[in-house]
């Protein structure tokens, strides 16, 4: 049960947060981590996939549009559809929407400017495998760095996202108020991160891997990684207990 979680960080030409994500998993969270080259078609038995930030394929055509067709993405899509944990950060979020694993699209920032700064995120759903160590409504300080992070979708999809509690993070002020001033890019309903209906695929524009090292003062990003790790520990604990003949009633208390 002390087995570590194996993270796979996909490397596209133009990824530039792949090493940060690897460092966060390996050196800060003390888990296993491997790089997954975009031309490979083997996920190396990883437990969770990270699509890192950057400018895959130079953001040509549309952000994330070309990456979606790479050999590794075929496997990532299969993995996600089988219930595997996938987190797309920044460009990774853009790739997930282009691949159809998450709804909507990320438009050019309303300001037309690349925005690189710390923002506050309100945790709108702490009952996911990516946020289970957060308190509901907790405010996290995590940086953003993007030019195309303006989340957009049609009104029906937005209503469904809200009804299913798929909006996981919203840009807020330090007190968790969802205001226009706290919205750095014009995103609909201040959306900073969403999850798929099944709950195993998360896309977020902010960079948790840049807020993990105590040396750099901010460590709120650790909570995202720790939540993913916890989700495996609880799964493994259950499996071990079941293997030993125990039956867990209402396992995990609704927290997956």
């Amino acid at each position, binding site marked *: 049960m002390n087995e570590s979680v194996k993270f796979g960080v996909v490397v596209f030409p133009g990824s530039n947060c792949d090493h940060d994500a690897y460092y966060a998993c390996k050196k800060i969270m003390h888990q296993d981590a491997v790089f997954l080259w975009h031309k490979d078609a083997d996920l190396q038995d990883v437990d969770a996939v990270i699509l890192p930030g950057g400018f895959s394929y130079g953001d040509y055509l549309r952000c994330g*549009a070309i990456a979606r067709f790479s050999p590794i993405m075929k496997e990532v899509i299969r993995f996600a559809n089988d219930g595997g944990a996938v987190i797309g950060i920044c460009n990774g979020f853009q790739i997930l929407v282009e691949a159809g694993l998450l709804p909507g699209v990320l*438009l*050019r920032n309303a300001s*037309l400017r690349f925005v690189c700064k710390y923002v506050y995120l309100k945790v709108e759903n702490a009952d996911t495998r990516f946020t289970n160590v957060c308190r509901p409504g907790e405010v996290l300080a995590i940086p953003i760095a993007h030019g195309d992070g303006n989340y957009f979708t049609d009104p029906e999809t937005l209503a469904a996202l809200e009804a299913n509690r798929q909006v996981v993070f919203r840009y807020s002020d330090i007190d968790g108020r969802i205001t226009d001033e706290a919205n750095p890019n014009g995103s609909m309903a201040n959306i900073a991160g969403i999850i798929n209906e099944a709950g195993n695929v998360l896309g977020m524009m902010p960079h948790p891997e840049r807020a993990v090292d105590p040396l750099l003062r901010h460590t709120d990003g650790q909570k995202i990684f720790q939540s993913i790790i916890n989700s495996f520990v609880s799964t493994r604990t259950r499996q071990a207990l079941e293997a030993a003949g125990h039956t867990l009633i209402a396992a995990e208390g609704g927290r997956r």
Partner: protein
Amino acid sequence: MFLSKVRITLRKSILDPQGKAVEHAVSALGVKSVHDVRMGKYIEFMVDGDSETEAKRATEEVCKKLLANPVMEDYQFEIQKV
């Protein structure tokens, strides 16, 4: 062989901040009659074969699956025999 010329534009319902920025510049230029600027992409490519129907079908597929994202973009194309 055919030449396909594809035009991709942001859908009407989508705010086009680049278009807006250009519109402000046009206004600063002093041309008052120009408005509603929309930015888009132009892409052209060759399609092998002799059948116009087939060339249209191939172009349509490429537009739908790759060149345009239907959530935010519309596309139009014309093809000519070369």
